[in-house]
């Protein structure tokens, strides 16, 4: 298998807290990879390190054979890694179409046509003339997806694409990802909605306290004891894990 995107031993500390520790994650070309883990496990930090929004203290990030560790966000985008954010970053007082054109690098008519195609694809072309601020939360997520796709990145990183989105739009988002993937697009997705992740991803990596505790296909991950432990939390120091056995 070929890893199109790879983090190798990435470490990142904020003050004394290790947000990421020796974090190695691989995303195979043409796959949909998932990144899950409890709150604060380092998922978004890893996204930030990959995309240049945070500097790694240790380790490296590779896109194909190219080492892109700690490149600035615009360069990472130029290399072919597009991302969305957990809280959508759209221009609320620009129209939907204008938002698309902000990200667009080339000529006007062509850019406009391509932008409209992307909006058609995600299903919000009918709203192109409306202010982005009037879109629902789910529609904003779709706008952000369309916006990232304009530059045709090799890898798309999605930070909680289904978070706070109603069920029918969650399904729309999943369908669009499947279609893009069928056409060869590679994805890395952070998401708390397990049905979404497990139903969509070829491979899931699980972070806990900044380290990888498991990686594999969804069916294996779902039944992995280490993964469940990560989600349920640790016993407190001194808590007897088997109080029933004393009786």
């Amino acid at each position, binding site marked *: 298998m070929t890893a199109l995107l790879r983090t190798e031993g990435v470490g990142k500390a904020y003050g004394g807290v290790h947000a990421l520790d020796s974090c190695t994650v691989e995303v195979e070309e043409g796959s949909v990879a998932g990144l899950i883990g*409890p*709150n604060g496990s380092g998922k978004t930090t890893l996204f930030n390190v990959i995309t240049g929004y945070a500097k790694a203290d240790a380790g490296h990030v590779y896109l194909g054979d190219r080492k892109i560790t700690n490149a600035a966000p615009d360069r990472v985008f130029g290399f072919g890694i597009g991302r969305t954010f957990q809280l959508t970053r759209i221009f609320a007082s620009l129209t939907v179409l204008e938002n698309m054109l902000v990200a667009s690098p080339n000529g006007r008519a062509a850019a406009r046509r391509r932008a409209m195609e992307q909006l058609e694809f995600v299903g919000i072309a009918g709203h192109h003339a409306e202010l982005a601020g009037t879109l629902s939360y789910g529609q904003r997520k779709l706008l952000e997806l369309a916006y990232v796709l304009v530059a045709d990145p090799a890898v798309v990183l999605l930070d909680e694409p289904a978070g706070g989105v109603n069920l029918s739009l969650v399904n729309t988002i999943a369908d669009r990802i499947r279609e893009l993937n069928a056409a060869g697009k590679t994805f890395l997705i952070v998401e708390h909605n*397990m049905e979404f*992740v497990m139903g969509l991803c070829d491979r899931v990596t699980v972070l806990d306290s900044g380290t990888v505790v498991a990686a594999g296909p969804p069916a294996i991950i779902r*039944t992995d004891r280490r993964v469940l432990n990560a989600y349920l*939390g640790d016993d407190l120091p001194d808590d007897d894990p088997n109080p029933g056995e004393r009786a």
Partner: protein
Amino acid sequence: MTGAGTEPRSVLKITDLVAGYGGGDVLRGVSMQVREGGITCVVGPNGAGKSTLLSAVSGLLRPRLGAIELDGLDLAGLSPRQVLRRGVVQVPQNHSLFRDMTVRENIELGGYILADRKLTARRAATVLDAFPDIAGWAGKKAGSLSGGQQRLVEFARAMMLEPRLLLLDEPSMGLAPLVLRTVFDAIRRMSAAGVTILLVEQNARAGLRLASDGVVMESGRVRLSGTGREVLEHPEIGALYLGGAVSSG
């Protein structure tokens, strides 16, 4: 797990509660009870609606449907201040002390709605007795305390109103394991002093071990309930966190 007549009565009874923000519902028909004198711990994956549940109880979020009864009186639709006057006090998830005020001043502010200086001073003395660690920091600025110490002061401040029901929203958030122990011990002590507690906790294992009763929420509904132990050892708890088919209950 409905009960015999000898069971403690419910302080809080939530029935078919629907609430949310904007267009969507976060809580989609939640029914649960909080037993008098117990610690009821609500756990569940991210986005299950745990914090929204507390917001609805404390009046920060107006329910769309359903009832929230405190000792038989409906709280739904009351303002946060009115809910507070009924004796429901919430310790929010994020640190909420006034950093430039002293610990003692922060605690006294917990008695703000008492509007009675003497009573406030008496209560503050009682509260400081109950939290002996805090007495040593009473004159320090709250902002100079560690995260765990701030949590204890937030608890102490909440105790100023001698709450009928104490709502704790993820008190372990951001705390190191050793500090967690201190914070959980404090929760245990408040409970032992007779306060009924509704606890939302991300560390499900630690929270359910501490609790008398446990509730697992998922996608805005109650999916499992029972004693803390029963819920923690329930074979379906894994599926609720990691996805998969689970019967609703």
